[in-house]
């Protein structure tokens, strides 16, 4: 009766997660996630009709500060770990092909 995380759903969630799964990973995750979600469904027996959700366990409030520039990473530091960079920019493959755009 609990939700089965079938192959189709694993593939859909993988796309949303920006993950590419092998055949064996799809099979494995389908079985394991079904198990885990089946276990998670035990919370459904609890009546939470009148219960407020708790996003943070302790009282949190907005934290303000004066809008004054603070020291931050230099361009060089920010790029130091980039897999590919040049002239102060991150390099990525072309996003638009040569025929797109006006």
């Amino acid at each position, binding site marked *: 009766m609990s939700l089965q995380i079938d192959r189709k759903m694993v593939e859909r969630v993988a796309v949303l997660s920006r*993950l590419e799964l092998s055949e064996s990973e799809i099979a494995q995750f389908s079985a394991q996630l079904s198990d885990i979600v089946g276990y998670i469904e035990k919370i459904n027996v609890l009546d939470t009709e009148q219960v407020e959700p708790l996003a943070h366990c302790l009282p949190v409030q907005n934290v303000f500060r004066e809008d004054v520039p603070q020291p931050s990473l230099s361009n060089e530091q920010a790029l130091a770990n980039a897999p590919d960079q040049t002239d102060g920019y991150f390099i990525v493959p072309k996003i638009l092909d040569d025929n797109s755009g006006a």
Partner: protein
Amino acid sequence: MSERLTALELRNAIAAKKLSSVEAVRDCLGRIEKYDPTLGAYISTFAEKALRDAEAIDKKIAAGQPVGLLAGVPVAVKDNMCTAFGPTTCGSKMLEHFHAPYDAHVIEQLLAADAVIIGKTNLDEFAMGSSTETSPLRKTVNPWDNARVAGGSSGGSAAAVAAGLCAAALGSDTGGSIRQPASFCGITGLKPTYGRVSRYGLVTYGSSFDQIGSLTRDVADAALMMNVIAGHDRRDSTSVAETLAPKIDYLADLNRPLDGLRIAYVPELHPGADPAVRKAFEDSMAVYRSLGAEPVEVTMPHYPYAIATYYVIATAEASSNLARFDGVHYGYRSGAADDYVEVYTKSRSEAFGAEVKRRIMLGTFALSSGYYDAYYLKALKVRTLIRRDFIAAFEKADCLMLPVSPTTAFKIGEKTDDPLKMYLADVYTIAVNLAGLPGMSVPCGFDENNLPIGLQIITDAFTEDKLLRIAQMYQNATDWHKRSPLL
């Protein structure tokens, strides 16, 4: 010889010039060289830098200059805390070659206290795990039995402290990741209240749970570490303001016992634990009774729902937090990608391990259209119910005591094929993170295989002073924490 001293004893010996920091650091590095090839506690060590730092502190002491609370003491940090020196790998191929451009708040605090950071310790990948087995970079074993896990996710820190490969260590605790490995390795672990220690520079896993704390030889060292790392930091918006929770000297009152201590315990939760764990728990309660404490039976009706609740909320947060790993800004990039989306997808698929993928998928599922209300929102409501159980218990008692883990350290590979089985090992620790409370693990016995057992003590938010005093009462009356493994 210095490896048997606690951090506090070592600090005092160094400050009194009975021992130099250079000697202490050399001892430590020697032990790492000898034992770490077997134990696998460290991902990286900083021998040269550590000796240079130690020398500088010795000079300060020789010149009669004031020194910090951890002057010259060799300390290890879990490798999910950013350091401006050496790599910060998070136990992942994704960050294997990442060099953080800044120090985490806790690193600044350690350095300001004149600690010598000797190395960075192994962990489950992105702190996701309960055994340190999901790290692809090192294999950490338990110093008490090398066929068993050290626990996780701060397993490297726990093994390093237990084996005398550092005097004290930092870890992080999202669902039990300090308390459980401390228990498995026979040392003292403290997870402070959420918001007590700044998370600035801690690589995020579950933002509303993550908290940095200590793994130490004893309770006094945990108090010492709190004196160093606790306090407000404006760079973490959830760091609590000084006005709400002032920073205090946790060592000052440590040895003052609590008169009329009332200890809440939950008999209905004990049948899930091994007989040796239950026996050690009952013996601990007898120790407290002999010290004048009064046990108070309470119920925690929503405790059994904590694991289910946690694995919805924490993975939802993780799926969002780990979206930053895109193969562009920092971290691993796939060489096989032809377009921008492929850079993103292939880099993540090649560099993340199975447990990280599983949690990202689970969290993405719980947040996805059609399932959000049924899983994520429902779990947030159950989180409220779990927090209410604690509030009710603290109306009747000063603290709550439970086992840390239902078992002692399990065998390497025993649970790796069944993720749900691994998750269930955190049954006693996870609720504390859902409620944001401080919790400790202190050694309270050994099982028939000579494996350590931990006692978990939990108090109300921002009462770490009381928590430490309660734990100290126990350590003043017992000597489990003084045992160390034969290496």
